[in-house]
Structures are given as structure tokens and as C-alpha cells.
């Protein structure tokens, strides 16, 4: 925000127009490849197959069990991995910042988090098939040595729990990356002040550090939620489209109008955009709240 206060020579009206001309290629690009494609989906969602304006698509959206279930499954997986990945990622970020681990481990973990949070899609799915698939490394290891049969116990890589385990691989590293700066922002003086007033370490965390960090933690979890909610390639590579999460359903609709109603497909896409937009608004709000103390 500080940079907006940069003193600028006040541009006069005609040259102001010229200034806007300078950024026109960028805005033109945004209009062509973000705005228009989005508007086309909006437009499509409000028309029926006869080309008449209708709200029917949105009504159908909420009445089609397959679609409602797909949203539900997507939200469940995203929420589970956002909360699980968020908590575990926070603990990891804690351990390398204020937790007292050696400094070399910190940079190793941050680099690795950068890699893991970008290692998604097809290769990630293959990696987990080799790990937790029916003949995967860990599956066989547990079976042969500890006599634990994961698949007998009800685990299946190609279901909710499997996908959750896979998403965690890119979820908690992302949490590490966003939480490390926040934890670094905790000022030493706060801890010292608390301790000088006789607070225990536990009291310091529950009464001082946590209230400061909480907006940032929740905001990051929302970011993780959106991250999982929009993921398509990993789930597709894993199940070939059998697991009915919303992105897979939309994919099937793009490939061949499986709903036999294009308008309904567009409405389905819009539903996703709306959920993503809500989570982004929540994230930015919490980010703003947390900036009061951190940074």
C-alpha cells in the first residue's frame, strides 16, 4: 500500500488518455482470454436449447442428484485436504521457523515445498499408484511385514480417501510456503513481553501468537480449499473420470455433452466459479485482517 503514496507528477487530461493507451494491450488480452470466455459461459448458462432466455438451468442444477453429489464430493475432498493439509503444513512451518530446528532444514524444506506444491497432475497420480496402489510399495510393505492389508481394511486409492491422500502431497507444502512468512512476522518483542509479564510458553501461544496468526491460518486454508477444488488433472489421471468430483463432471460435459443439455453444463461451470469467487473473497478479507499485525 505504501507505494500508492509515491509522489507522482499529476498527469493532465489528454496525456492521461495516452497513459491508458500504454496498458491497453494487457487489458485487451484480459478481455479476449479471460472476460470473453467467462461471459460466454455466463451467457450459455442463461439460455435453453431453443435459444430462449431462462433460469431453468440453475433450477435443474440444484435438482440433478448427480451434479449436487459431485459438488458435495468436491467440497468434502477440498475441505478435508484444506483442514488436514492446513494443520499439518502449519505444524511443519512452525517447526522450521520458531520450533528451533537447524537452519539448513528450513531452506531444504522450503525448496522441497516449492517442488511438491508444483508436482501435481499426471506424474503425481502415477507416484501414488506406485506407493499406495494395489501393488504399491507401501501397500506391499505393510502387508508383507506387518500383515496389514490396506485394501482389506477398506482403503482404496481410487476413492475419497485415496484422492485426499494424494491431494495432501501438494496441499501441505503450499501451507508451508504461505505460513512461513507469517510465522517469521511474529515479533520477538511480543514473546519477550509476554514472558516478562509471567506468561508461560503455552499462554504465550494461546493468548498472543494464535490470535495474531489465526486470520492468516484460516485464510491460507481457504486458499488450499480453492487449490483442491479446481484441481482436475490429478483426479482424471488417477481414475480416468470414474470418481465423480465436479471438475471431472465438467470435463465429461466438455468432451461430449453427457448431460444432453449444454446450458446445464455452463450453469455447472458457473457454480464452480461462484464457489471459487466466494473463497477468494474470504481469503483476501482474512489476508487484510492478518496484515494488521504481521508485516
Amino acid at each position, binding site marked *: 500500500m505504501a507505494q*500508492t503514496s*509515491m509522489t507522482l507528477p499529476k498527469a493532465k487530461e489528454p496525456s492521461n488518455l495516452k*497513459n*491508458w493507451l500504454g*496498458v491497453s*494491450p494487457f*487489458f485487451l*488480452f*484480459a478481455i479476449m*482470454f*479471460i472476460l*470473453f*470466455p467467462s*461471459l*460466454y*459461459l455466463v*451467457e450459455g448458462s442463461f439460455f435453453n436449447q431453443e435459444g430462449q432466455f431462462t433460469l431453468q438451468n440453475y433450477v435443474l442444477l440444484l435438482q440433478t442428484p448427480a451434479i449436487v453429489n459431485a459438488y458435495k464430493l468436491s467440497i468434502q475432498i477440498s475441505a478435508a485436504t484444506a483442514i488436514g493439509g492446513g494443520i499439518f503444513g502449519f*505444524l*511443519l512451518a*512452525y*517447526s522450521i521457523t520458531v*520450533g*528451533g*530446528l537447524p537452519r539448513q*532444514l528450513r531452506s531444504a*524444506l*522450503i*525448496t*522441497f515445498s*516449492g*517442488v511438491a*506444491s*508444483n508436482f501435481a*497432475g499426471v*506424474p503425481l497420480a*502415477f*507416484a501414488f499408484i*506406485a*506407493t499406495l496402489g494395489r501393488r504399491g*510399495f507401501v501397500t506391499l510393505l505393510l502387508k508383507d511385514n506387518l500383515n496389514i492389508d490396506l485394501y482389506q481394511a477398506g482403503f482404496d486409492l481410487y476413492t475419497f480417501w485415496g484422492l485426499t491422500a494424494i491431494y495432501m502431497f501438494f496441499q*501441505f*507444502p503450499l501451507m508451508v*510456503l*504461505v505460513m512461513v512468512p507469517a510465522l517469521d512476522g511474529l515479533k*520477538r518483542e511480543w514473546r519477550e513481553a509476554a*514472558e*516478562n509479564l*509471567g506468561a*508461560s*510458553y*503455552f499462554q504465550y501461544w494461546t493468548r498472543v501468537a494464535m490470535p495474531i496468526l489465526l486470520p492468516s491460518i484460516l485464510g491460507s486454508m481457504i486458499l488450499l480449499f480453492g487449490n483442491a477444488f*479446481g484441481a*482436475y*488433472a490429478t483426479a482424471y489421471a488417477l481414475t480416468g473420470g470414474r470418481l465423480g468430483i465436479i*471438475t471431472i463432471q*465438467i*470435463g465429461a460435459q*466438455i468432451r461430449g455433452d453427457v448431460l444432453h443439455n449444454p446450458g446445464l453444463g455452463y450453469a455447472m*461451470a458457473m457454480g464452480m*466459479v461462484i464457489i471459487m469467487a466466494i473463497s477468494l473473497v474470504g481469503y483476501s478479507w482474512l489476508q487484510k485482517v492478518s496484515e494488521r499485525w504481521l508485516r
Partner: protein
Amino acid sequence: MASKGLRKVVAMSDTSFDISVDQGEPDKKTRSLLRIGGRFWSWVWFILGAIYFLVPLFATLRHSLRMERDVLGFKAYERAFEDPSFLETFLLSNALAVATILCSTLLIVPTAYWIRLRLPQARRIAEFITLLPFVIPAIILVFGLIRTYSTHFTIPFTDIELFQPLTTTKFGTYALITAGYMVLAMPYMYRSVDTGMRVVDIRTLTEAAQSLGAGWFTIITQVILPNVRSALLSGALLTFAIVVGEVTLASFLGVDAFGPYLFLIGQHKAYEPAALSFVTFLMTWFAMGMIQFVTGGQGQATGAH
């Protein structure tokens, strides 16, 4: 480190503040015990995290080395690299990544520069635009792109036709997918470059260059670009990591890139996909390691899935 901090606090409370002195010794002792307990848990979380990271990679590597019965060897890698489709798709993906990076640079560097220098009132809207790709995931983006550009292009809600469908020609499809990748990479590229410009004070640099008689082209290519080099490079490497393995846009637009190829061989073969997955992982690691290297550990390192 924790005990050193504690000692400092203790020393401080003994000399300047007397508040905690009468708390007595036992409290200090439990406090430092708690710290040590905290460090124990730190190790536990770290080791758990390391296991979660490393086991899938180890399993992939192990699987990829076991193509021949009872021996470990690089057979799967040989087979995978031998396939002419591998090289074709891999080169195409790399070419698309380079095109995306070049076009993004051309579009974003002058824009970010101009907004910082002359048009601060456009800042909010530009930031808003760069956030949009987070709201519109790849699957929705490609849905919109197909609906918009696979038919005769008209302005939304009207019948005014602007141009022919892009997806009917190979070049048109490549242009379209590059534009799509530019959208996916935009948040990272724009933010990276914008942060880079905030650090180097482009205003002074511009004035200095102008006073020496440089034109706009010279200023951007000779003064601004070299100064945001590391920011740009880290954005570019992240873009590279995103584009090379990308599946969603490529498969729906029918581009024979590396991502769809990897998916395809995953359906038919057992060991080669593991080998190529491991190679992909090494490439991602290389890109991220380079980002750490060029930015001195300050680089932003998250992408889209």
C-alpha cells in the same frame, strides 16, 4: 537457539525489568523444559513431513527401475526415451513453455512498468485481473476458450462476427493454448515482475535514463529489464514448471503435448510412466532450485494444479 533467546530474556529481566524476578527459578526451568519439548515435536513434524514427501518419490523411482525381472536397471528409462512420441510431445511442450514465457514477458513487463510509473490508478484493476485465474480454474478456462474460439468468434450477447474459429488450424490452436497458458501463469508473472520493480525504484532509473537521452524502447530493454531480471527469471521458471506437464488445456484443445502423452502411456504401460514421472519430478526440482538460486530464497514458488 531457543535457549539462547531465553537467556537473553532472563538477562534482560534481571537488569532492566524486575517484573519477572520474583517469579523465581522453577518457572524458568519449566519454561525451558517446554521449549525442549517443543523442539522434540518440531522434529516429529519435520520427519513426518519428510516421509510424506520422500516415500512416493522413492516408490516411483523403485518401480521405474524394476522393469526387468529381479534386476534394478534403467530399462524403463531407455524404453521411454526411445519412443519417438516422447521426444515430439516433450519438445512441443517446451516450445509452448518458451512461447508462453516470451509472450508473457512482452505483455507484462511494459504493463507493470507503465502502471508503476504513470498509471497508479490502474493498479487495483490490474491486480484484480491477475487474481482472476485463481477464480477460474483451468478446466473452466478451457471450457470458456472452447466455447468462444471453436466457433466463429462473435462478441458476447451480440451477433457481430470478428474472426474465424481458431481451433480449425494448427497454428490457431497453438496460439490459443499459449494464450491460455499466459492466463494460468499471469498471477505469478505479474506479481513477480511487479515486486521486482518495487524493489529497484524504477522512477529514478527512468529519470536517469531519460536525462541521458534514452528513448522508451531503450529504457525498457536496457534499463528496466536487466534490473528485474531475477524476478522475471523466477516467474519464467515457475511458468515453465506449470506448462511442461500441463494436461487440462492441452487435452481439451487437442494439443499433443507432454502431459496428455504421459496420461496416454499411463493407460497402456507399467514402468515407463513411472520413469517419466520421476524425470518430471527432477525437472520441477530443477526449476524450483533455480528460483531459490536466482532470488536468494525470496522467490514465490507456487503454481496451479
